[in-house]
């Protein structure tokens, strides 16, 4: 069984800028995989090489065993792509657009049933005849997902599918994508939300400046980057016992790093002993930027 997606030593230059630097990556069929990285890490560049929008400066890429350049027809038939930008064709309605898209992949009239199923599954039934221009941002996002599915590709790639999407829709999309994966589709998504990768994906690649700096199961990765941040607001000095946990002093007060949730206990005890009246307390999930700073700090 070929890998769903395979990158062999892929590099990409834009002039002097090296967007990808020797990426090797193999994603198995049926996986739910996340490409995680800060803005500019090269996630979209990887996706665009996969879909044929960009050509690698070096190396080769396969989708379901088909080379994306030499066997581009087979490779593209195996791939559904949800682009990062909310692009659309203002001339057509949602249903027209989906039917055209399916047609480009060689699908004929008998595929229309599937298109209506996808429209329904994404909650767009009442918008099927509406011009794309008149859809809201969230609807356009869903339309893009529908568009990636019209030809029933085994591998589906979503480039930041939930960027700029409200919480409710985000959960609906997660549910939908999970169902696709359960139905046997390989899912690859890029994100810079740790939470998203954590919630959905079984394996994660961390990308930084065009290099994969970490590739592991989500469970293993979270174990190495556990911990939360605690923002405290009070007047007075931080008790000496808490200074080892101090991450930064900011205008709001003190930001402490908790290695585990039970450390919260320790903080509260020390604050009480020092007779400090808390004005505010906020637990913050580490965001990826923090994790990166940490990971890169450790790895160098």
């Amino acid at each position, binding site marked *: 069984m070929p890998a769903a997606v395979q990158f062999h030593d892929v590099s990409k230059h834009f002039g002097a800028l090296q967007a990808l630097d020797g990426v090797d990556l193999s994603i198995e069929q049926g996986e739910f995989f996340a490409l995680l990285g800060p803005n500019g890490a090269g996630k979209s560049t990887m996706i665009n090489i996969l*879909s044929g929008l*960009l050509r690698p400066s070096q190396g080769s890429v396969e989708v379901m065993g088909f080379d994306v350049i030499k066997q581009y027809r087979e490779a*593209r038939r195996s791939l559904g792509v949800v682009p990062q*930008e909310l*692009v659309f064709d203002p001339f057509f309605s949602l249903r027209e657009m989906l039917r*055209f898209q399916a047609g*480009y992949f060689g699908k004929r009239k008998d595929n229309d049933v599937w298109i209506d199923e996808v429209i329904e599954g994404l909650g767009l039934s009442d918008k099927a005849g509406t011009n794309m221009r008149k859809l809201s941002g969230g609807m356009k996002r869903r339309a893009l997902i529908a568009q990636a599915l019209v030809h029933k590709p085994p591998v589906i790639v979503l480039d930041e599918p939930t960027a700029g999407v409200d919480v409710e829709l985000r959960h609906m999309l997660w549910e939908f994508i999970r169902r696709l994966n359960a139905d046997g589709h390989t899912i690859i998504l890029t994100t810079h939300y740790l939470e998203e990768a954590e919630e959905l994906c079984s394996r994660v690649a961390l990308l930084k400046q065009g290099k994969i700096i970490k590739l592991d199961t989500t469970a293993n990765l979270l174990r190495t980057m556990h911990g939360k941040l605690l923002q405290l607001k009070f007047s007075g000095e931080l008790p000496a016992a808490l200074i080892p946990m101090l991450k930064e002093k900011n205008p709001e007060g003190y930001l402490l790093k908790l290695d585990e949730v039970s450390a919260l206990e320790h903080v509260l005890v020390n604050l009480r002993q020092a007779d400090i009246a808390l004005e505010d307390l906020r637990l913050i999930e580490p965001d990826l930027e923090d994790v990166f700073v940490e990971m890169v700090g450790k790895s160098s």
Partner: protein
Amino acid sequence: MITPSMVGAWTLFKKELLRFWKVSFQTVAAPVITALLYLLIFSHVLGSHVEIYPGVDYTVFLIPGLIMMSLLQNAFANSSSSLIQSKVMGNIIFILITPISYLEFFLAFLAASIIRGVCVGFCIYLVSTLFIDLPLEHPWIILAFAFLGSAMLGAFGIIAGLWAEKFDQMAAFQNFVIMPLSFLSGVFYSIHSLPPFWQKVSHLNPFFYMIDGFRFGFFGVGDISPWLSLSIVVFSLLVLSIITILMLRAGYKLRG
């Protein structure tokens, strides 16, 4: 046997057709009205003073040139505006990520341009025959020039659409290339009425051959032999098509 690739190319062609058909008021009705205005004004101003071919009324002389000019401009507009719009909007990627090959892409865009050009030309013909009796000496020559001319400008439109990155670059292309070529091609006059220098310049303009050959189809008279025109048009079409196909194959400004 209908293969998936054929379905893909056919779908792209249908999409390109529907794109202009949905706004046919702008893409068909407007150019027809413009051509009729030209006809009205020029024939009114010059009609009684000029006789270019013996026995052919100026107004009658004017119509084939106007038809051809509109046909060429609209064939160009179809592929160029579709490409520049989908590049600027970003939706060109919907086509680029499909199995459609560069050759299929070329054929689909070219065919849609031909239909748009011929459709506009035919409408102008129909409307003008309501008022004026137009001879049809060689219908096959008329059709040949209509198809070849719109194909040539369809290909030219793809080149321009690939090259331009913004709407104003496309407008510049229209104003500084397409307009001069179409107005200096003998639509409104026979080039024999020009000074020798400008006659020579006109001979470098491929639009001149398309219009002269097309007009020959109606009157059986032209400034030069229709076979020479036909050869030059076929040759130009081949050259433009090869350039277009090479650009598409290289993914020029499409795939980075």
